[in-house]
């Protein structure tokens, strides 16, 4: 196989090297066929198209990538990943970028989506399982948008789709252990 020109060395291109290492994907192989962007169902809401995002990573543009809307708008549907002629799992790269963005402390390109993820994880941490009503109320308390979907919520409640109390489970200690390991790593 031909050698790839864009080298992912730590010294020359630390951001590319970091993303390649964390994702295990050969980002250097992208030759901009744009198939990922052509098939993406949410591309219209992105500020940087998926193919452009890959190019930015190749160039080492950390700031542009980690503060983009794109990484949060991606719905992880994997259409891009299965259609890439170079077998680059772009959806997996998006996961890596979201996690790098959160750790970098950079201002996220989308306001509510990272908040939702953090409320979701807090909910698992405290209850072991997702209790939808608590999750929604906690999310709303952060976004202050209490009226949105209130009517739909009531309709769903009347249909018996909303459970008032979380279900009981006995795995609390283990869940705490999982999250503590995670928090320790975060502190490093």
């Amino acid at each position, binding site marked *: 196989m031909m050698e790839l020109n864009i080298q992912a060395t730590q010294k020359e291109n630390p951001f590319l090297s970091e993303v390649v290492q964390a994702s295990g994907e050969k980002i250097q192989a992208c030759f901009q066929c744009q198939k990922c962007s052509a098939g993406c169902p*949410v591309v219209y809401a992105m500020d940087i198209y998926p193919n452009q995002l890959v190019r930015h990573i190749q160039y080492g543009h950390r700031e542009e990538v980690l503060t983009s809307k794109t990484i949060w708008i991606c*719905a992880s549907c*994997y*259409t891009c990943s*299965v259609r890439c002629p170079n077998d680059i799992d772009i959806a997996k790269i998006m996961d890596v970028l979201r996690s790098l963005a959160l750790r970098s402390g950079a201002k996220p390109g989308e306001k509510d989506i990272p908040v939702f993820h953090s409320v979701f994880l807090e909910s*698992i941490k405290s209850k072991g399982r997702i209790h939808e009503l608590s999750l929604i109320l906690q999310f709303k308390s952060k976004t202050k948008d209490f009226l949105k979907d209130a009517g*739909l919520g009531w309709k769903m409640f009347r249909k018996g789709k909303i459970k008032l109390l979380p279900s009981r489970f006995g*795995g609390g200690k283990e869940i705490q252990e999982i999250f503590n390991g*995670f928090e320790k790593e975060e502190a490093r």
Partner: protein
Amino acid sequence: MKEISYYPGCSLHGTAREYDDSIRGVSELLDIQLHELDDWTCCGASSAHCTDEELAIELAARNLAIAEKTDRELLVPCVACYSRFKAVEKEVKEHSKKVHFPYQGNVPIRYALDFFCDEPILEEMKKKRTRPLSGLKVACYYGCLTVRPPKVTGVREYENPQHMDRLMKCLGADPIPWSYKTDCCGASLVMTRTDIVKKLNDRLLSRAMEADADCLVTGCPMCQANLDTRQEELEKETGKKYNLPILYFTELMGLALGHKDVRKWFHRHITDPIKLLKTKGLM
């Protein structure tokens, strides 16, 4: 009697209760005994894998370790949970990833749709079918993670899957051909970017109607909720009329097998399926 471990996942204890009830119902009729995992916890989807891979792996592995205590297969009805479990299985088996909980990658993880499409179960269903769903035109909606990525799901026909279509034929329904079988519904963006989800849902519903479907069938709690709950709101915004019930494949199995609780399941839907099924002479 076949025995299988069962991981319902969080949605099936909440918004997707009718999915849980119908899986339990049809399993009973098909002589399949479900053993719900003791003290199962959330698999981490959709937020853990977006924010921390290690956390995502351990949250899923904890449940897989519980399942691995027996020799039974593990039945997983929620496709988001299934996708996470398969991803962790791959990490452990193929990349020798070490996890905290005693999990070796040996539990066969079965997504509910794939499981009920197994040939012996289809045969059994044909035998036990009491009310063929004749004249019901269904658009099989597979969504994303039931088929993608194929290196995780193992589905070969991932651009135009056929297994749910085969299952529907076996129930006597008429699966219509349409091009949006595996298009995304927007999933968890519904909480944060509802506008995107509504745009995608309008497209899916409109295309299903153009293909002359009476209803959509799915095996994903997130797709079902997104498509079922926002039709009225969308109608006001787009001026279109949808009124397309969104059914779980297990509910239609229950209907064809003559399960006594089908009405209870259908009552939980926001877009009412009972009227349609009555018109078709199926209820």
